[in-house]
């Protein structure tokens, strides 16, 4: 414990770096997967193309993707941005499927009624489809959030500073406290992110507090398979 207090500044710095590097993939992944998921829910061809592509990208092991990204985008090999891009790719790969399922779960007669009372396509998307898909989207983004926070630590291997650096450093120094500190901090970051997402969802979907619990749990269970 002594070590934690004396190195508090370092740990705090790494935690902030961890938060900074993992927020971007989660947010960008979510935003990108909305139109992609919507497209996938509208057309069978789009669905099979997007989900297959997502499946293949998600299959690429993280270590390989982290070092392959700079080559594909042409940046420096050890640039932290590579890890952010790789994690965004994973986030989209997981999230597109959830988003497609979320939009597909909006009842067709609700959509038809919206059209019948004069909603334009865009209005219907924002006022009907998106809110109704909300609970499932929330379940998906929670999965993305947890796995992004955890996967980021692998970036430490290729020299990207984050809480994972405590693992590589602690291992080299044969120092358990440092590794445990890293584990606990990562779990805490994941927990805080999860709470933030749930709070945001409560504010955005106030009608959803009760009924969602069940559907979200059911979806979390299914998402556990992805």
């Amino acid at each position, binding site marked *: 414990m002594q070590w934690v207090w004396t190195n508090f500044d370092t740990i705090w710095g790494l935690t902030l770096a961890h938060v900074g590097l993992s927020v971007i993939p989660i947010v960008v992944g979510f935003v990108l997967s909305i139109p992609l998921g919507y497209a996938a829910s509208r057309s069978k061809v789009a669905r099979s193309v997007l989900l297959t592509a997502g499946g293949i990208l998600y299959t690429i*092991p*993280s*270590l390989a993707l982290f070092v392959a990204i700079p*080559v594909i985008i042409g940046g420096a090999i050890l640039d932290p941005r590579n890890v952010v891009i790789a994690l965004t790719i994973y986030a989209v790969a997981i999230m597109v499927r959830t988003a497609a399922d979320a939009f597909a779960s909006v009842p067709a007669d609700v959509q038809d009624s919206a059209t019948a009372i004069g909603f334009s396509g865009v209005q219907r998307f924002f006022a009907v489809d998106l809110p109704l898909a909300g609970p499932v989207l929330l379940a998906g983004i929670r999965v993305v959030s947890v796995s992004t926070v955890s996967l980021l630590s692998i970036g430490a291997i290729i020299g990207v500073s984050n809480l994972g650096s405590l*693992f590589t450093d602690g291992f080299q120094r044969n120092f358990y406290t440092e590794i445990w500190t890293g584990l606990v901090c990562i779990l805490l970051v994941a927990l805080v992110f999860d709470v933030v997402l749930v709070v945001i969802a409560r504010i955005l979907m106030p009608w959803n507090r009760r009924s969602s619990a069940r559907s979200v749990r059911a979806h979390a269970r299914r998402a*556990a398979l992805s």
Partner: protein
Amino acid sequence: MNVILAGFGWIFTASHWTTVNLGPGIGQRVAEHLFITLIALVFVVLIAVPLGLFIGHTGKGRTIAIAASNISRALPTLGLLAVLILFLGIGLLPITVVLVLLGIPPLLAGVYSGLESVDRTTIDAARAVGMTELQILLKVEVPLSIALLIGGLRAATLQIIATVAVAATFSGGGLGNYVISGVAQADYAQMMGGAILITALALVVDGLFALVQRFVVPRGVSRGTSRRNTARAGAIPVVATTRTLIKEGQ
């Protein structure tokens, strides 16, 4: 792009297949990678399949299984590996322990949600025609959910292959070694070569599982369930299951 070409060049340098930097060559590293994966997979199957069948058939303990899968997703692989390798020493054992821990949740989820996806009326029908619980499990539930079961195995295997690569940071074995040493020595051809090999291995294994999934589904059960389609568990078409059932029950 040059680095990709350099990576392929590195792979297709004949001498690298026998030895790399005085260490094991590509052939041996691939074998190591597959060997560790296979050992872990055996334990994963031995633990997760019976447990998943129990949970799926009885519906007991599902909450625990879900919690386990959520925790395993949140736990950083690298940290687990670091702790266990320090604790148990470098070798096959600590890595296998971590791989088994990470491989169990996806397979477990595939097995129990596979069983859950079977239409309840089908199971009731099987019970009504006098099948024992074991017969229901092995002759009705497992065949009808086999695609999801294999899907779980597929997810577990890929998880393990990816983790073996990461484990090279501490243990040095498997294909991850080339990426780690490549980064350490700023030898980007070696790094990229390693990354390409790991990706190829994962994609080939994934493809093989896709084929297996296609062939194991019994006649009469429509397909359309792939690894991540398990997200739609419960949506397994139960068309013609009764026909299958009657055939099985005879």
